[in-house]
């Protein structure tokens, strides 16, 4: 397996960032999809998994801001919490992916994804509770907003992201993680 060059990783990060702006717009065409599908999470998680933590972190930090700049969504008021949440996704997914090697690509992907998704939600909940809306959030509302209402989004991401990674490998657009493995 050939490692991708920094130039290539940078451009992949750039297209993931562009998709942070474009995907939520595309999902608007689908009735009330934005809050359910969490479209912006997908490019950030993919960027972390494929390009590593520094690129994933950048994608998470800049993606929501760029989207606000271009489309007005997410609204400025929720931007800080969202940036923190997405930055953690990009960072953690990349970190875990570089730490574990089970010899099975999909196992690596799922472990990294799940840890990233849980950490991101915990950190975002903490940030919301301690910095942005002191006292106004309880454990219950946190759990409700981050796990229950976004459950469909979580399931979709768990289906979608590995599918995309394998499709990219088959198309030879990214190198295989393990040569000739499933």
């Amino acid at each position, binding site marked *: 397996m050939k490692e991708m*060059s*920094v*130039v*290539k990783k*940078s*451009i*992949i*990060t*750039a*297209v*993931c*960032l*562009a*998709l942070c*702006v*474009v*995907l939520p*717009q*595309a*999902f608007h*065409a*689908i*009735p009330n*999809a934005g809050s*359910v*599908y969490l*479209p912006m999470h*997908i*490019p950030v998680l*993919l960027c972390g998994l494929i390009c590593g933590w520094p690129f994933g972190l*950048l994608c998470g930090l*800049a993606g929501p801001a*760029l989207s*606000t*700049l*271009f*489309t*007005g*969504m997410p*609204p*400025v*008021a929720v931007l800080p919490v969202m940036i923190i949440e997405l930055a953690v996704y990009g960072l953690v997914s990349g970190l875990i992916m570089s730490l574990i090697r089970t010899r099975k690509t999909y196992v690596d992907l799922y472990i990294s994804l799940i840890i990233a998704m849980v950490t991101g939600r915990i950190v975002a909940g903490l940030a919301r509770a301690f910095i942005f809306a002191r006292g106004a959030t309880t454990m219950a509302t946190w759990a409700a907003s981050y796990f229950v209402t976004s459950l*469909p989004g979580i*399931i*979709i991401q768990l*289906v*979608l992201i590995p*599918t*995309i990674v394998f*499709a*990219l490998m088959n*198309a030879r*657009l*990214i190198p295989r993680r393990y040569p000739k493995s499933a």
Partner: protein
Amino acid sequence: MNRLPTGMYLPGDSPIHRLDPRVKLLGLFISVTAIILVRPLIGYGVILAFLAFTVALSGLSIKIALNSVQRLSWFFLVIFMMNTFFYSPENAWFSWWIFTPSSAGLMQGVDVVLRVVFALVASNVITSSTAPMEITNALEALISPFKLVGIPAEQIAMILSIAIQFIPTFSEETEMIRKAQTARGARFDSKKLTEKAAAVLPLVVPIFLSAFKRADELSIAMEARGYRSASGRTRKKFAPLKVDDYFALLIVIAICILQILIR
């Protein structure tokens, strides 16, 4: 897609359009801080007057300045209701189950919604009057001091520039893919959760494949044009700030300080 995206750059030649993008970005940051800090009623008046003045000066219509406010109406309604009904059980009008509507909550709801609207107007004015590339360049200038702590400002600026450059291409392509899959019978409006997940696959998988293919081709094209890394390249030079720029910066800083003083 038969609607313009909000916050899209509208070329013009107003005093706001002509401001240095670094000043505009910094100005936006300071004004949003001022909006968060605002406390007494008179403070709202100052912000409102300042925003009205900026919108008038920018030559953009009120409609553009208020762009996306209407689209967010349900979001505002939710914030407003949540605050009204859950804010505080003290001095509630009545209490039923978990609902404790109060006038303090009502005020709080109005307050939050107003702040968000203000921030939206401020960012709409800036994004509508500044070319995205100018914003990236300004960002590069503003984050370049962080190079001292090892953050590669040029590389980040390059990535942002390429991202912005790809946005219109991806928007068109996404729309095309959506239409192609609709014509093939894709159902994006299914109710069942599993079907919902299945319905986004035909849209999202092609978008990523196409985007990564474009990334692949662009990285080859960039290398063919001699790109090695972000360092070792010609440095961008920024024009010095003009009198107008200093003046604009002074106004926003003054407003921000005022908000702190009258809290």
